[in-house]
Each structure stands twice: as structure tokens, then as C-alpha cells.
């Protein structure tokens, strides 16, 4: 029974794992894995190159979503898009990094669930808007933040986009994955309605929102504790870092007024 399936193609997987663990350049690792896999399958050199070439041409659609928005995002950044996102969030006094990302998670997941996956994305939404707003919210609340925290917040902004997209889009009936699942089951002699598959995705979608949302809620609590934030009391001179935060907020508010004049 062991001999019916060839285990040689797993050589490519071994190359990938070793390459990523040893931190070689990913482009090189992937090319080496493709070469190793096709050699293990016993293809001649020309067929190996043809296999790689055909695959690369077939997947040209993948970098489009990264490359196409760069022109407009780059141009807007030159004219202060990220700075603007920063200023805008500083005006909303109740905004915190965690709350902002929870709202984005909800919007991203709900819009993906009705098929509007184009409303988010890393090049066009996270880099120019969501990440600077998250950093801005933290700076308004805690004053200057360390680079380590800045990178952590950016990574969480990207993570939030991914979680919202992945666990929202599978609830959408016309999503490619649902078509794939229904077609596959049909070939196996089992018929299910696409609507049923979409509906049974809802419990996991809710769990994903609760789990990731709870982590973001904890983020706020942890930052408040570590960076010593106290809610400013009314009629009382707010001490310490909170004083700095309100000072920053006041500055931001006066900036906002200034530009309207």
C-alpha cells in the first residue's frame, strides 16, 4: 500500500522548509523548490524550465493587485496622504489603536461577506490609511511611541485586514471557494446547495471576529497599562502622560481649525 503513492515530490517541500528556516532569499528558495520537485518527478531540463515558465505566465494575475494601485498611492503619499490620515484620527478623541482596528475588522468582514472584497487590501487601504491612523491614534493617546510598538501596530493592521477578508469572504455565496467546494462534492456524488455551505461558514466567521476583536481589545488594555495612560478627569489638571496626550490632542485640534481658516 505504501508503494502506490510516490513520496519523492515531498523533496520540494523539504527544500521550502529548509530554505525558509535558514532564511535564504525566498525567490531563490521557491525557484530551487520548483527545480527540485520537477527533478524528483524525473522531468528533463527543458521540460522543467517549460513547466516553470508556463506556471509563471499563468499566474500573472497575482501581482496586479499589488502593482496597479502603486501609481496613485505613491502620488497621494507625495502630497501628504499618510500625514492627513494621521491628523484626521487625532481629531477623534475616543479613538484608540484597538478600537479603530476592531471597527475596521467589522467593516472588512461584513463587506467581504456580501462580496465587496475590493473595499480593503494592503496596498490601497492598509499602507496609506489604516496603518497611519492606527499609529496616529496611539500617538494621540500616549505621546511619542517607540519604533518597536509602531511596527507591532502596523503588523496588527495588516493582520486585521487578512482576518476580516478570509473569514468574511467565505460567507459570500458567489465566492470562488464555495463554487470549488460544491463542484468537488458533486464529482464525489454528493449534492449540496451553495447557500448551505455559505450559511455554515457563519459560526466560524463570528468566532473569528470575537477572537481577533478580543485580542485587539486586550491590546488597548495592555498599552494603557504599560504606557501609563489615565483617562483625563474633568475639571482636574491631568497629570503625567495623560497631560501630554491632551496637549497633543489640543494641538491636533488647533491644527484642524487652522486649516479651515
Amino acid at each position: 500500500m505504501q508503494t502506490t503513492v510516490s513520496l519523492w515530490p515531498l523533496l520540494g517541500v523539504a527544500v521550502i522548509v529548509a530554505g525558509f528556516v535558514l532564511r535564504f532569499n525566498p525567490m531563490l528558495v521557491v525557484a530551487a523548490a520548483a527545480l527540485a520537485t520537477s527533478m524528483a518527478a524525473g522531468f528533463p531540463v527543458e521540460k522543467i524550465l517549460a513547466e516553470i515558465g508556463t506556471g509563471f505566465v499563468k499566474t500573472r494575475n497575482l501581482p496586479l493587485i499589488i502593482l496597479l494601485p502603486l501609481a496613485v498611492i505613491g502620488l497621494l503619499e507625495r502630497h501628504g496622504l499618510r500625514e492627513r490620515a494621521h491628523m484626521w484620527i487625532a481629531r477623534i478623541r475616543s479613538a484608540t489603536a484597538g478600537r479603530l482596528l476592531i471597527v475596521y475588522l467589522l467593516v472588512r468582514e461584513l463587506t467581504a461577506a456580501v462580496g465587496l472584497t475590493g473595499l480593503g487590501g494592503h496596498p490601497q487601504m492598509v499602507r496609506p490609511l489604516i496603518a497611519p491612523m492606527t499609529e496616529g491614534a496611539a500617538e494621540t493617546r500616549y505621546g511619542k511611541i517607540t519604533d518597536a510598538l509602531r511596527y507591532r501596530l502596523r503588523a496588527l493592521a495588516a493582520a486585521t485586514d487578512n482576518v476580516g477578508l478570509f473569514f468574511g469572504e467565505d460567507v459570500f455565496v458567489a465566492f470562488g471557494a464555495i463554487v470549488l467546494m460544491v463542484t468537488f462534492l458533486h464529482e464525489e456524488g454528493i449534492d449540496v446547495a451553495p447557500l448551505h455551505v455559505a450559511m455554515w461558514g457563519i459560526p466560524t466567521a463570528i468566532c473569528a471576529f470575537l477572537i481577533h476583536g478580543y485580542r485587539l481589545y486586550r491590546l488597548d488594555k495592555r498599552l494603557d497599562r504599560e504606557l501609563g495612560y489615565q483617562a483625563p478627569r474633568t475639571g482636574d489638571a491631568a497629570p503625567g502622560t495623560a497631560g501630554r496626550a491632551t496637549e497633543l490632542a489640543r494641538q491636533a485640534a488647533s491644527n484642524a481649525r487652522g486649516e479651515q481658516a
Partner: protein
Amino acid sequence: MILSITYLYWLVGIVLALVAGMVVLDKTHPKRFFAGTFWGLAALIFLVGDKLPPALVGAFVVAMAVIAGCGLVTGGKPKVLSAEARTQSAKRLGNKLFLPALTIPAVTVIGTLTAPYLKIDGVSLIDPKNVTLVAFGIGCIAAVIYACGLTRDTVGQSVRETRRLVDALSWAVLLPQMLGMLGLVFSDAGVGKAVAHLTTSYVNMDLRVVAVTVYCVGMALLTIVMGNGFAAFPVMTGGVGVPVLVGVFHADPAVMVAIGMFSGFCGSLVTPMAANYNIVPAALLELPDKNAVIKAQVPTALAILIANIALLNVLAFR
């Protein structure tokens, strides 16, 4: 159809060719000829990749991987305006700055929703197989025109800004495509079958809980290896899902596949193989640690995977 995805390939090809030209002509760029060759080959593949012999394209790809692997695709010195100038401009333009950025999703959504009705003489205006991508492309072009009008800047400047960002992203731009290619090579060589064979022959699945766990964890692990839940799905569902969960334990197939696919997505959250979601954002957000996004996602992915195992145990066997 009138607007096919091929036009977007040509557009990207032209932009990459311009980037390659600017890199080669940039005397301050440390590795201008190597980096220029890298982007030039990429441009060629986008412009005429389907007309060239596949083996030649394969040789180009290997050459690009070697150039990138030797660390020769570095960026030049970015020319950006000072922080004060940008803040001034942000104040002057105000919230209008957001509008071109929001044009992209708006046009994508409108295009996707209206595509079935956009017909000229019975011919679809937008390629029906790639509606979202083509609508997204139109959105990006519309956004550039809008942004140029708003900022009184030129299309030439937007190409220079593209070069700045492409320089910063470096080879990460093409990593998703490399991995897509590897996924095709893997499935041709039967990697999925080998993995499914290993899991099914060495785990005893007489207990329902064990079988459910094998299916969910298997989906996640195979997705980690292949970088894509879609590639893992037929292997695990054909190997464990249908014969064991449905055949032996009478699971509801709709529940099984829905939760199974989500288990695969938990794998996508923790693998560098899903470069579009994990490695490219790290490059886009200029994070020093290329795995920072994955690290931020690990706790969420693990918790959701455990939730999936519990949900499948409860919901599929009512």
C-alpha cells in the same frame, strides 16, 4: 469581451519597462544594471510572456531568482518631499486627499455589480471571467487621473512614485507569482497526494474526534505547505473528508466543507507561502522583520483552528 485582463498585463508591462529604464539610467543606484535586468525581464514576461517559448520564460524566471537571491535587486535613493512640505500639502488639500484612494474600491464595486449589464451589441464590456480584477484596474486608472487633477501633478510623477514604491518592495512584488507557479508545479508532481497519504496511513481514525481533528489540522498543515487553501481542499476532502467523515461518521457535507476551508485559511495566516497576505504587507509597511505579520496572526489562527474543530464536532453531527 472588449476589456480583457490582457490589457492590464500590457499596462503593468509598460510600467515595469519604464521602471527598468529609470533604474538603469539612475547613476546613483548601487546595482543599476542587475536591478534593471530584473525589472526588464519581468516587463518582458508581462508584455509578451504568452508568445515566448515556455522554456525561455522559465530560464528568465530562474535568472531573476538568482539576481534576487544574490541581493542585487536593491533600491536607489528615494526622492521624497520633506515632512514639512507633505504636512503643508496635507493641510492644504484636506480630506479631499482621501477621495482618489477611495476611488479604487468604489469603482471596483460599481464595476463588479454592473458588469453583467454592461454590454455593447451583446458583447460584454468587461471580461466576465475576471470582472473584479478588470474593474479594479479601471478603478486604479481612474484614481490616477483624479489624483493628478487634485494635486496638479503629472502622470510622469506618478510613474516616478511607482518606481519609488517598486524599488522599496523589491522582489517581494513578484513573490506571490513565484509561489503560484510553485503551487502548479507541486500539484503536477503530486505533492498533495503524498501528504494526504502520510496523514491517512499513520493516524488511526476510528474515533470521530480524531478524524475531525485530522481533517481540520490536515487542511491547515497542507495549506501551510501549499500556500493556498484551494490547493489543499481537494486533497484533504478527497482523502479524509468524504471517505471517513461522511462515509463512516455521516457528517453533514455542507458543514464539513465550510469549516474545512476555514481551517485551511487558518493555515494561510501563518505561512510565508501565502506571500500576498503575509510577506508583501510586511514589505509594504516597511517592517524590518519580514515575518512580523505572521507573528501577529499566530494567536488568532490557532484560536480559530481550535474553534473550528469544536464547531465541526458539534454542528456536523446533529
